[in-house]
């Protein structure tokens, strides 16, 4: 990406555009982050509830993953086209699309994380007198955390990429620059905007992914300690 930007720097890439549009870039950054955070948070709440239902009633696993799997496969463009007549060019429309893409990833990981808690640990917890709720919060959830966070990371990166698509309804974060750049095709200003929008989107994804990874490390100190050989 950077290499590409440099080869096109003579005349094709307009550095001065960045200086002139620094406020717009900041506004779109905030928009991108807010759209992402809201989508992943809402997705996480819905997925947690559905995962708890699955853990309690195993039979619901197939229908729930089947439904969220269909949502996942609907092309985002088609989803937007379908929703705009109903919910308009609103945040709601954007978030419905974004959230629907997080569900399958998050549910799979939450359920896998909880399923992965060792049976002997659960038996010991029961045998020691944990109530069901307390065991879930104090034992199962912390032990499932690494797998759950792995799901959140994939969901977040996916959503950051998808936000550029919701620029089609005017809520796209960095996608706004890409879309406008496309409309100014073959002009140096247009190319510059496409490259800036893309680079910032990628950068945001990397930053979010790394921060989540570091957060997980901080929350699971036990996972890195091993017995000395």
């Amino acid at each position, binding site marked *: 990406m950077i290499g590409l930007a440099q080869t096109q720097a003579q005349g094709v890439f307009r550095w001065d555009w960045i200086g002139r549009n620094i406020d717009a870039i900041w506004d779109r950054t905030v928009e991108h982050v807010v759209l992402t955070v809201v989508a992943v948070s809402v997705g996480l709440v819905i997925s947690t509830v559905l995962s708890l239902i699955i853990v309690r009633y195993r039979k619901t696993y197939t229908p729930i993953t089947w439904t969220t799997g269909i949502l996942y496969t609907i092309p985002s463009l088609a989803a937007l086209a379908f929703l705009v007549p109903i919910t308009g060019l609103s945040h709601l429309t954007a978030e419905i699309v974004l959230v629907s893409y997080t569900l399958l990833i998050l549910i799979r990981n939450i359920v896998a994380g909880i399923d992965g808690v060792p049976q002997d*640990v659960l038996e010991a917890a*029961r*045998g020691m007198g944990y109530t069901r709720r307390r065991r879930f919060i104090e034992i199962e959830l912390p032990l499932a955390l690494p797998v759950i966070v792995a799901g959140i990371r994939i969901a977040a990166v996916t959503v950051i990429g998808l936000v550029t698509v919701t620029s089609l309804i005017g809520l796209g974060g960095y996608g706004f620059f890409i879309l406008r750049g496309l409309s100014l095709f073959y002009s140096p200003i247009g190319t510059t905007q496409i490259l800036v929008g893309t680079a910032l989107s990628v950068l945001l994804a990397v930053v979010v992914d790394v921060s989540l990874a570091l957060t997980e490390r901080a929350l699971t100190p036990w996972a890195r300690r091993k017995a000395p050989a």
Partner: protein
Amino acid sequence: MIELEHVSKTFPGQDVAAVGDLTFTIPEGESVVLVGPSGCGKTTTLKMINRLIEPTGGTITVAGRDVAQMEAHELRRGIGYVIQQIGLFPHRTIRDNIATVPKLLGWEKKRIQARVLELTDLVDLSEDMLTRYPSELSGGQRQRVGVARALAADPPVLLMDEPFGAVDPIVRTRLQDELVSLQARLNKTIVLVTHDIDEAIKLGDRVALLNIGGVLEQYAPPEELLRDPANAFVADFLGTDRGIKRLSLVPISQINLDPGPVLPRSAPVAEAREMMRRYQIDWAVVGGDGRIEGWFTENDIAGHDTLDRVHLLPFQTKLAATDSLQQALDAVISSHTAVAAVFDGERYLGMVTSEEISREIIE
């Protein structure tokens, strides 16, 4: 005291009962080992006591209270529980693992802190392990933590489900010994499940031998079980070497001791030769009045008139009357004279011979 009355369990979807109709009592402060082949329902029986498995029939009372009438988690907080895979919480330090039940019971921080240190000492762990995570400990250390965690709230009852099944034989033996000495101090009511008859004999004040379907074939102290198996199944399960196994449980004081070929210092050599002939051996002992000085062989007395100046050899192995016949057998077969001298303190009691030991085995 734990009482099981006509307890049964049939798992859903199965025609045959895992436990048919089981009635027996586990006395206060004793350790009872449930042993038997796979499918005998021993683990099912254990787990019905703390209601990890709910019985389909009968009643179980712990200290006079019907467990079915109690809240399951309240019941379990009052019963220590140790399992084969230990099940330590990987995300908690050793300190927090040990503190599990006191925390559930809402103890004060200071009290928990003090109790954790007490237990660390009790199970022989070092204090610097408290800040580590379970993954940083060896199998034997983890099992000790498991026992400490089960004992944390000082429950009167301890349930142990194959507690030493997952550690290597050397560590297992050590952990078994530790449990025996721990129990000698704590006097818990222990119910332990194992498939290993030797472990059952070693750890149980009583052994409950179960057959398929939870049929109680015999319920007796290990020594009685080995001496007098109730039926062919029990005898078969105990193995052909049950006579030998029993030796470790019988003290030397239980058998007749031979006074031994003992002569006073002043005895003439001719009397010594007569004694050796009678015993059909080539050695004899100098002593008398509950003391012995040493032994000599036929060669040592050549050229002497009396035993006065005969060179005596000291006894290599001295046994106490409280030692087991297994120790006696070991001493006898590894001694030159094929006997071993038994003492009560400094007082000589007599000789234990291989004949007397085998008489005890055959009986």
